[in-house]
């Protein structure tokens, strides 16, 4: 109880966390249409982590999940870039083919935008968003934990970890 904030703060956090995460996801998947993108959306999602950490003083035991999400995002980003190696790295091999994210714009010039376009740009936005949100959440979580803002948990010493 020592690390939690008051009931008012916790209730407001419960209400606000969901719109913040949804707004972050919106920024990520509309990265090829509107201002924003993977980095910005990931930072918005990570801010919800900061809110949870401040209000509740604990974040569960999701360190390994966040670590693997981050590694997964970066790996898939590099793989997506490498698939285009036939012509060049980061070649946009999906755009204009007609499949998922391969649609064509309704018209050149000023147009309302169409979310099923962009090819690798949209997919890479997703991957970068995954990576950035997990990475910034990890940094916030680790720093607040070591500065005494969060309740300590039972830890495994390095030697025991090796044995397991």
């Amino acid at each position, binding site marked *: 109880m020592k690390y939690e904030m008051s009931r008012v703060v916790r209730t407001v956090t419960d209400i606000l966390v969901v719109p913040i995460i949804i707004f972050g996801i919106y920024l990520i998947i509309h*990265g*090829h249409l509107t201002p924003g993108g993977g980095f910005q959306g990931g930072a918005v999602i990570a801010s919800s982590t900061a809110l949870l950490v401040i209000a509740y003083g604990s974040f569960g035991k999701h360190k390994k999940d966040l670590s693997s999400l981050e590694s997964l995002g*970066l790996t898939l*980003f590099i793989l997506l870039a490498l698939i285009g190696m036939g012509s060049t790295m980061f070649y946009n091999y999906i755009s204009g083919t007609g499949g998922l994210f391969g649609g064509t714009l309704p018209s*050149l010039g000023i*147009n309302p935008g169409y979310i099923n376009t*962009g090819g690798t740009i949209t997919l890479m936005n997703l991957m970068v968003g995954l*990576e950035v949100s997990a990475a910034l959440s990890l940094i916030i979580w680790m*720093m607040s934990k070591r500065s005494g803002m969060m309740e300590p948990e039972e830890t495994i010493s390095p030697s025991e970890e090796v044995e397991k």
Partner: protein
Amino acid sequence: MRKSIAIVAFLVIFAFLAGAAVEMRPFGEPDQSAMDDHFLGDTQERHQVNNVVTAVLFDYRGLDTLGEATILFSAVSGVLTVLREIKKDEKEEEVATK
């Protein structure tokens, strides 16, 4: 002495900045616009994307973005390494006290 050096440095830098401001081209008319025109036309035609900034980030300069993502990854690795939990074994503590 220090004050006079500061005044001279201020005047020199101010002269350079004022000269640059006087010779600046008007807004919206860059000296070389070939690259801008290429990006503005090519992005919608070839990549089918509306957001030119995102197209530059993830297509034309994708390696740059890869570097950014790698920097973030190494930053997280550094934070996790520096702030990791270290529980000293009892044997080690005995050695340290001796």
